[in-house]
């Protein structure tokens, strides 16, 4: 009996949260582009999850060689054709989704892990340290990210790990800017002042009041960045500084397929289509999330 009372109380307490969530879901569902974004990202995640079990030629991702069936056009046996060593392009594109998700996650998470704490310090603690952080951030932001990544990966040497590292290193300043301006605005609100007046410590204010309010812009930015980071890594792969063959990374595949244009067009056409759809999906999703969570900043991007 007591559990029923408890659960009723619990439900009453949560009712407004549930109402808000349902309202947000309705708003989200009204926007066709958000739904398309969600659908693309959903399909992408499903492919990532079950990819290794559905591909017709699992060995081809690790660079098996079947010269007897090289450079075949798309057919029933090879939906996207085959490449110069006879690997099935469809298999490699599907397994490339896994690689791309890893790349996107690693870059975005590292960038946020570096950027968010620095942004909090710069916005909340301020002072000389905050000034220094913002100066360094500005310097990083003054160079186009791809050039800086090129310089870093040029210094570290080509390879997928170095490319991810380079992109993460040039990606964090965006988070510092975002979190710093948000924290700065929050610090001046009455409720943070009230918390401080009632004796809350710095750590308590940061973790209880500042961080939770930064979550939604960070989620929005991270969703957008997933797509952009995948694009960035594919760009480095295309230049030849990212993933090295036979690693099934989309950008590197396009780079190699480029040598077989125009006759063997399928080799670079399909990986590019995969990048396009993935980035499109994350962008649309990020857009929908922004309209939902952070309507005021809609035009800021």
């Amino acid at each position, binding site marked *: 009996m007591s559990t029923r009372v408890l659960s009723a109380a619990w439900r009453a307490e949560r009712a407004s949260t549930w109402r808000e969530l349902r309202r947000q879901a309705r708003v989200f569902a009204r926007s066709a*582009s958000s739904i398309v974004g969600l659908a693309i990202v959903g399909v992408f995640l499903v492919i990532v999850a079950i990819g290794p079990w559905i591909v017709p030629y699992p060995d081809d991702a690790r660079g098996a060689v079947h010269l007897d069936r090289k450079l075949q056009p798309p057919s029933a046996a090879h939906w996207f054709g085959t490449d110069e060593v006879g690997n099935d392009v469809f298999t490699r594109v599907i397994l490339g989704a896994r690689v791309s998700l890893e790349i996107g996650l690693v870059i975005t998470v590292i960038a946020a892990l570096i950027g968010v704490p620095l942004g909090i310090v710069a916005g909340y603690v301020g002072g000389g340290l905050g000034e220094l952080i913002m*100066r*360094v951030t*500005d*310097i*990083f932001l*003054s*160079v*186009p*990210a*791809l*050039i*800086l990544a*090129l*310089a*870093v*990966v*040029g*210094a*570290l*040497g*080509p390879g997928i790990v170095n490319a991810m590292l380079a992109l993460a290193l040039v990606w964090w300043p965006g988070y510092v800017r975002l979190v710093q301006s948000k924290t700065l605005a929050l610090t001046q609100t009455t409720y943070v002042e009230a918390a401080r007046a009632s004796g809350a410590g710095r750590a308590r204010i940061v973790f209880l009041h500042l961080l939770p309010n930064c979550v939604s812009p960070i989620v929005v930015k991270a969703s957008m960045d997933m*797509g952009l980071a995948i*694009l960035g890594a*594919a*760009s480095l792969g*295309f*230049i*030849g*500084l990212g993933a090295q063959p036979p690693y099934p990374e989309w*950008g590197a595949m*396009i780079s190699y397929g*480029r040598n077989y*244009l*125009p006759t063997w*067009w399928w080799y*670079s*056409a399909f*990986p*590019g289509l995969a*990048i*396009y*759809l993935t*980035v*499109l999906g994350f*962008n*649309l999703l990020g*857009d929908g999330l922004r309209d939902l969570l952070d309507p005021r900043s*809609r*035009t800021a991007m």
Partner: protein
Amino acid sequence: MLFGLSCLTFAISHVVPGDPARLAAGPDANQAMVDTLRAKYGLDRPLPVQFARYLRGLAAGDLGESLRSRNAVAADLAQYFPNTFELVTLALLLAVAVGVPLGMLAAVHRDTWIDQGARVLSVSGVALPAFWLGLMLQLLIALHLGWLPLGGRLGLTATPPAPITHLLLVDALLRGEWRTMADALAHAALPVVTLSLPALASIMRVNRAEMLETLQQDYIKTARAQGFSGFRIVCRYALRNAMIPTLAMIGLRYGWMLGSTILVETVFDWPGIGLYAVNAAVSSDFAPIMGVTLLLGLNFMLANLLVDLAYGWLDPRIRRPGLT
């Protein structure tokens, strides 16, 4: 800022685990040759000394030399930069010239097929990988249809005009060499479109959103009530206010183009500093990459300065803060 940037490039180029001197000496060099080279480039000195040397060189316009070709990086940049500048400037002009009117059109004809088409273009433009789009355009327009050349800056038979500004198109125009000009334009068309599409898409999108907001404001309603024509209201009164956020996007996208020009130049074999940087990066040749990074950073800073100046021109309140 520029000092900070040079600290950054120095830091990147000196945390490198490889040994530039050994790389420059080539695979067959013995230890003595490597040591000679190391001493010559000052790579055996402590880091602060190297940094001081680096800064002194920068102040004198010396960006070091390419370890591969032994050319002075500054001279290389002077040779390649005009091509990149031309490409990026044309792409930006195209993006603004198409993106802004299209954004206005989409806002005025909200929720019609024009607006829907613009929306599809804007979401696709940002997500398309520039290098892949470039390849597909080459495939379709240059190879399949044969309308435009595949890549490069000029056809094999064309001779570049005698340099005045070192900008090929401007020089051809000034010298009145129309055939060269046409050839150069044909070579520029695909790279410019490829580079500008993402910028065009986001400029259009911001301009549409801002126009929609501006068109709902009271002063526009007043102007309508006073009987001004719709065209005049949209183009003169609304656009001016909508341009302020659009301008921020233009500045942002300019910087982005400076970055992705390295991809477009690689695809179209465009002899600019992007291709130069990529070739250097592939063979771990640092001085050129750092030179390109500094030059593009400087470019971006200047562009931001221009954007700030343009704000003041568009919005008197920024020019004279006392007005508000």
